[in-house]
C-alpha cells in the first residue's frame, strides 16, 4: 500500500527526514512514532501528496506521490495535525463539500456523509457551525472527512490528540473496526494506544528510521529487565531465598500494612522467566502466595531507549514548517 524508498526532505538547511525506507502492506495498522520534531508530520505530508520530497521515492496504492499526485490524493484519506477545518461551515455542509471534492455526488454522497457522521459520532452536531465545536468534535469531523471517500489508505496525524479518554477509546475502536477495509498509518504520542491498536510500529528519531517491527517484538528484544511482583506470607528470610534464585538481579521489599503479608519486587535479568522457580520455592518452604505478577517492559521503555541511544536530543528542530 505504501512503498517508501530512501526518502529525504530538507527545509532550508535543515534535514527533517533523512533516507527513510519502509513498506506498509494492505490491511495493516501501522503506528508511526517519534518524539516531537522527529519528522513524522513531514513524512505524512509527503505521503499524502501535499509536498514533495527532496530526494527518494514514495508510492501510495501504486501511484507516485509526486508525479501522480491527484490519484494519490484520491486514494488517501489524510487527517492533518490539529484538524484544520472551515470554521464558517456547518458539519454536514462541510462533509458534503469535502465528499463532492473527492468525487462523490448525489444520493450516494448524501448517504455516505450520513454514514461517516454516524461512524464518528457527529450526527448530533450536524447542524452546528464547526467554529462552535469543541476540539474533540472537530477532531472527529476531520476524521469523518478523511473517511468519506472510502480511501484505501488512511493517514492520520495524531488523531487522538486533544481527546478525552472516552473519545480516545472510541477512536481506537473505530480504527480497529476499519481494519478490514482500510490500511491505516497513524502517528501518536500515546504509546499505550499503539500497543493496543497497531500491528506494527515504525519509530523515527531525528529524521532517521530507528525501528520497524511489531510492538511485541520490539518490547521483547529490549535489553531491559522485567519486574516480578510478589505478595507472600512465610517464615524465615524470604528476601535472601528469593535473591538466590537464578537470574534475580535485585530484590526489594515493600512494607505492607496488612500483616502477615509481605510484598517483594524482583528485578529479573532479560531472558529469564522465574515464575515456576518461585512457585516451587514457595511450595518447598510452605509459603503462602497471594499475588504474582510479571511486568514486561512496554513500548514506552523502547521509545525512551531508542531516543536516548540516538544521542543527545539537542539538534531536534523546535518546529516543523
Amino acid at each position, binding site marked *: 500500500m505504501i512503498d517508501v524508498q530512501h526518502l529525504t526532505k530538507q527545509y532550508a538547511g535543515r534535514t527533517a527526514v533523512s533516507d527513510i525506507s519502509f513498506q506498509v502492506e494492505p490491511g495493516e495498522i501501522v503506528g508511526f512514532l517519534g518524539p516531537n520534531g522527529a519528522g513524522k508530520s513531514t513524512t505524512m505530508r509527503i505521503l499524502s*501528496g501535499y*509536498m*514533495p520530497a527532496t530526494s527518494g521515492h514514495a508510492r501510495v496504492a501504486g501511484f507516485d506521490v509526486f508525479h501522480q499526485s*491527484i490519484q494519490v490524493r484520491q486514494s488517501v484519506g489524510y487527517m492533518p495535525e490539529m484538524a*484544520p477545518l*472551515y470554521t464558517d461551515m456547518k458539519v454536514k455542509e462541510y462533509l458534503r463539500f469535502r465528499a463532492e*471534492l*473527492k*468525487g462523490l455526488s448525489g444520493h450516494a454522497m448524501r448517504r455516505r456523509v450520513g454514514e461517516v457522521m454516524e461512524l464518528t459520532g457527529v450526527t448530533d452536531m450536524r447542524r452546528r457551525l464547526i467554529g462552535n465545536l469543541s476540539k474533540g468534535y472537530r477532531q472527529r469531523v*476531520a476524521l469523518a472527512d478523511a473517511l468519506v471517500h472510502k480511501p484505501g489508505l488512511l493517514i492520520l496525524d495524531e488523531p487522538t490528540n486533544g481527546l478525552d479518554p472516552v473519545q480516545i477509546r472510541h477512536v481506537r475502536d473505530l480504527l480497529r473496526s476499519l481494519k478490514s477495509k482500510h490500511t491505516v498509518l497513524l502517528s501518536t504520542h500515546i504509546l499505550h494506544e499503539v500497543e493496543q491498536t497497531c500491528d506494527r510500529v515504525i519509530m523515527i528519531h531525528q529524521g532517521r528510521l530507528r525501528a520497524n517491527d511489531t510492538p511485541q517484538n520490539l518490547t521483547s528484544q529490549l535489553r531491559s529487565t522485567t519486574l516480578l511482583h510478589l505478595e507472600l506470607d512465610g517464615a524465615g528470610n524470604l528476601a535472601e531465598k528469593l535473591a538466590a534464585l537464578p537470574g534475580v538481579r535485585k530484590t526489594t521489599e515493600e512494607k505492607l500494612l496488612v500483616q502477615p503479608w509481605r510484598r517483594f519486587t524482583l528485578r529479573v535479568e532479560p531472558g529469564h522467566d522465574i515464575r515456576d522457580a518461585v512457585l516451587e520455592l514457595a511450595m518447598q518452604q510452605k509459603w503462602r502466595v497471594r499475588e504474582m505478577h510479571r511486568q514486561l517492559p512496554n513500548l514506552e521503555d523502547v521509545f525512551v531507549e531508542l531516543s536516548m541511544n540516538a544521542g543527545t536530543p539537542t539538534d531536534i528542530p523546535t518546529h516543523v514548517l
Partner: protein
Amino acid sequence: MRIFWILLKKELHAFFVSPVAYVVLALVMILNGFAFRAALSVLESAPSEGSIVSWTFHAMWFWLSYFFIFPLLTMRLFAEEKKMGTLETLFTAPVRAWQVVGSKYLASVIVYGVLWLPSLFNFKFAQWISAGQVEVPPGAMQGAYLIIMVMGMFNLAVGCFASSLTANQIVAAILSFTLSLLHFLLGIFVMVVGRKLSDTIVDIVNYFAATEHIRTFTAGLIDSRTLVYYLSMSMLFLTFTHHVVEFRRWRP
C-alpha cells in the same frame, strides 16, 4: 470542471455567510450615493459637457470606494486558509491549483459585480423622478460599467496575488491597497507634472492610468487597448498567484 464549480460554490458561500460582503456592499452603496449627489450638484450649478454618468465616476467618492473594495474582498482568500491550516486539507483533496485559484478569483469577481448593481438604480431613479429630463446616455453607461468591471478584475487579481503571499490578512490588504494606489497614482502623476514631460511619456503613462481609462470610457469611448491591457494584466497576476500556490509542490 466539476471540482471548479464545487469550489466556486463554497467560496461564494464563504463571502455571503461572513459579514464582509454586506459591509462592503453597504459602504459602496453609501459612497455611490454621495458620488451621484456630487454629480447632480455639478450639473445643477452650470451647464456641462459631461453627462451625469461621467461626473458620477469622476467624483472623489467613487475613488474612495474603489480603493477599499479590493483589499476587503481579496485579503482573506488565501491568507486565511494559510493561517487556519485549511490549505493543507484543501490540497490533500484531489484538487488542482488552478481550480483553487480560479474559483477564489471568480467568486471575488462575482461579488464585486454584485456591489455595483445598486448604483444602476441611481441612474434609473434620476430619470424617473425628473421625468426623463436627466439624460443618461446609454453609450456612457455601457462604457462606465464595462471599465469598472475590467478594472475590478485587474485589481482583484492583484489582491489575490497579495493574499497568496502571506498568512496575514492585514499584510495582504495593505499590499493590495498599495499596488492599486500606485496604479491609480500614475494618472495623478501625469496631471501634476505632465506639462514638464514629453508627449511620448505622457501617452505611455496614460495608457496605464486608471483615471484616464475612466475618463474615456465614461464618455462612451470603448477602447479595446484598455480592455486588452486589463484582461492580460489580470491573467498575469493570476498566473503569479497560481505559481505561488503551486510553489509549495516544487520547493525542493
